[in-house]
């Protein structure tokens, strides 16, 4: 099969077969869309990227309040722009493994508590200085400092010591963590001169583009960095530019009018229309982001597992996926992990079952309405989703009272405070990270107030388990516990939907996130 596909993909690149026909034939041969797409991308890459020109993206998720300090990154524009000018130690590849960037070699001690990273020599920062192990150590120290305001602080709290020694950076951990190298791929951890301690917002690193334009919330851009260390895989266009377009219609028309070559966050309801525009390709990829209805397991009435199970069985996941995401996503199974994670095990799918819901509801002994708080800032369509849920619960004899909360202050006043609300999780790079962030009993964001001793023990044990098969089994068991005893109702994982124009060459979706995990501008080229 793959021989034929490869053959066909070369046809597409040579212009003898349309992209859509190719994807159609690939599907007929049983290949997944993601695989076919990546095949196409590599064929185009083999053909050779076009050098030069200006590549522009119109992205949602930029504000006048953005800064170039990587510690402050939160929304999509800084995330994508950071991957253009910033350089990281490692990068997540499409198959879930890691590619070394500024790190040359990463090794662990037997107890997975001491990690040694050898830093690549002779790499130049945009300001002409050489990247040293000291710079790397300072970067990690800055983000891991307890007083830091870095978005990466949460995942780095396990670090007890960082030091540079020759070309090596040595990191000491309090608890074993077999996943440590994955943390270094976090988008905040851009290596800066002296770790950015002197001037965090100067926008200097060793990425393929140098920052030339920085008008936060309006546009940000860069020009090719002549001494880029990473060779030819990135930095094809002479200049790149991100125009912040927060309005969905304006984004689409900018792509249609040819003012930008790629956009993010295409609204699911208009995808079918956009597909018909000549030259425009929808680039959707299933990710780790998930929509959730969260109950506090320690607060009445949700402290009763039968009530929680009743509310889980009363969720019609297929309908939710169809009506809220217009099919651009995958159904969830009440635990926060899906196939996008390494070491994933599929568990038996929970389905909408009014009878079981009724059974558990009666067993719980609860009566009266259950208050669900929601707001559209939780996720797009959250209020509609709450109403759909109200309907499917009614079919099981459960009364849900939907309370619409103001979007302002939703994250500070409702989420993680009120016992039953809608929310969104962007996912994390590893299962351990996801569980540690939101399901470990001591986590700040344990937003389901899930206190399960057995679960905690397994989580800690899995970290130092270097035998992958055993770890996989442990994660499967942990998933089962969350699914059957936790406070999480997870109707669906959403797709990231980008769109690229005819002039964006080499666009290949990346399972880790939108805009090719942020690398779209750095890796694509202006097609002739």
């Amino acid at each position, binding site marked *: 099969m793959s021989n034929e596909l490869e053959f066909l993909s070369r046809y597409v690149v040579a212009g003898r077969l349309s992209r859509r026909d190719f994807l159609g034939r690939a599907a007929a041969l049983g290949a997944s869309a993601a695989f076919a797409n990546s095949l196409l991308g590599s064929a185009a890459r083999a053909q050779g990227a076009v050098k030069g020109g200006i590549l522009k993206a*119109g992205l949602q998720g930029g*504000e*006048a*309040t*953005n*800064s170039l300090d990587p510690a402050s990154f*939160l929304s999509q524009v800084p995330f994508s722009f950071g991957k253009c000018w910033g350089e990281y130690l490692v990068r997540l590849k499409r198959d879930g493994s890691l590619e070394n960037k500024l790190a040359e070699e990463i090794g662990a001690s037997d107890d997975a508590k001491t990690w040694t990273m050898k830093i690549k020599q002779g790499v130049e920062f945009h300001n002409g200085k050489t990247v040293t192990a000291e710079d790397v150590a300072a970067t990690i120290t800055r983000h891991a400092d*307890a*007083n*830091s*305001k*870095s*978005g990466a*602080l*949460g995942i780095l709290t396990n670090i007890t010591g960082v030091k540079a020694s020759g070309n090596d950076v040595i990191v000491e951990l309090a608890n074993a963590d077999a996943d440590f190298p994955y943390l270094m791929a976090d988008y905040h951890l851009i290596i800066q001169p002296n770790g950015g301690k002197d001037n965090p*917002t100067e926008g200097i690193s060793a990425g393929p583009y140098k920052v030339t*334009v920085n*008008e*936060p*919330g*309006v*546009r940000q851009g860069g020009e090719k960095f002549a001494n880029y260390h990473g060779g030819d895989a990135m930095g094809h266009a002479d200049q790149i530019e991100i*125009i*912040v*377009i*927060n*309005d969905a*219609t*304006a984004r689409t*028309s*900018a792509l*249609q*009018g*040819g*003012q*930008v070559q790629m956009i993010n966050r295409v609204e699911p309801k208009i995808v079918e229309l956009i597909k018909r525009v000549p030259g425009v390709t929808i680039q959707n990829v299933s990710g780790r982001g998930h929509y959730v209805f969260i109950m506090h397991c320690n607060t009445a009435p949700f402290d009763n597992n039968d009530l929680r199970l009743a509310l889980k069985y009363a969720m019609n996941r297929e309908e939710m996926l169809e009506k809220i995401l217009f099919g651009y996503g995958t159904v969830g199974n009440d635990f926060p992990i899906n196939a996008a994670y390494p070491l994933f095990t599929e568990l038996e799918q929970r389905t909408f079952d009014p009878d079981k819901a009724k059974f558990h509801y009666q067993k719980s002994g609860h009566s009266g309405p259950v208050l669900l708080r929601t707001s559209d800032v939780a996720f797009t369509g959250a209020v509609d989703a709450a109403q759909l849920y109200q309907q499917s619960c009614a079919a099981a004899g459960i009364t849900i009272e939907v309370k619409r909360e*103001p979007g*302002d*202050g939703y*994250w*500070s*006043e409702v*989420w993680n405070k009120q016992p039953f609300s809608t929310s969104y999780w962007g996912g994390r790079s590893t299962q351990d990270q996801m569980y540690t962030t939101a399901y470990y009993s001591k986590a*700040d*964001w344990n937003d389901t107030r899930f206190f399960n001793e057995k679960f905690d023990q397994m989580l800690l044990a899995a970290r130092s388990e270097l035998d992958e098969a055993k770890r996989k089994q442990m994660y499967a068991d942990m998933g089962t516990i969350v699914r059957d005893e936790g406070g999480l109702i997870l109707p669906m994982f959403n797709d990231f939907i980008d769109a690229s124009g005819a002039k964006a060459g080499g666009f290949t979706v990346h399972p880790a996130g939108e805009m090719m995990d942020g690398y779209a501008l750095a890796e694509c080229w202006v097609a002739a």
Partner: protein
Amino acid sequence: MGGSPILRLIAQRVAMGILLLFAVSALIFAGTQILPGDVAASILGQSATPTALANLRQELGLNDPAYVRYFRWLGGILTGDLGTALTTRQDIATTLGPRLWNTLFLAFWTAVVAIPLAILLGLLAVRYRNGPIDKAISGFALASTSLPEFFIGYLLIFFFAVKLQWFPSISTVYDGMPFLEKLQAIVLPGTALLLVVLAHMMRMTRAAILNVMQSAYVETAELKGLSQLNIIRKHAFPNAIAPIVNVVMLNLAFLVVGVVVVEVIFVYPGMGQYLVDHVAKRDVPVVQAVGLIFAAVYISLNIVADIASILANPRLRHPR
């Protein structure tokens, strides 16, 4: 009291305006204090840890009492210091300057087209009142006003940016952009705004002049055989100026302070979008600064309108 009564009236208006501005500053400050949510939490978003929150609050000086912060702020403004943005740590005046300039640029060129056009159309409507021309002008103007501005914006984008590709749908302007390119970039947002403000000014011109047309001296002018246009130009228009100026100023103020929607649709980097971004992040100093600038624009345009109507009143211009 010596001096001309006009100067006294004008001085009164200006003094009132300044007083009003102080009152507004207090209101803005109070208003920003009762906004729900917390600056630190908004800056750090959903992914804030309690430690990071506490650190940030301490650093931003959010633990001082409100009146201390108010007088600190007022003192800064009186000495020309708008403060520092909480989120980006940049000087507000420096980041605000270009945005204000962009907003004024768009407002200015829209006004340059809209005001003469509205008055001309108003005059024409009076000249041919109740005829087909009047009805057509009024009908078109009212229809364009009745459509919400985002709809007008999308229509313009659809036809002129996507279909015909005459103008860009993205109106991003930046420093160092050639002047003609800038003008080309603001054609669509300018047109959308024009369609929004046109009817109000045009209808007011028409009504004000028609009002004057009922008076005895116009009848006299008619009787002595002046042409319709001459009557309007020489006798009716000058006496209708006061209400027209009032409406023009009101719309000018709208062009500066009320264009958020148009800015978002056309991705125009003006004050509105800037304000919204900072409100969302609870960046109070910026919100206060922008609020004060908006209030100052509004109040000073109203003072100008007042003064214009004082000057247009012959009884005040020529005191006995």
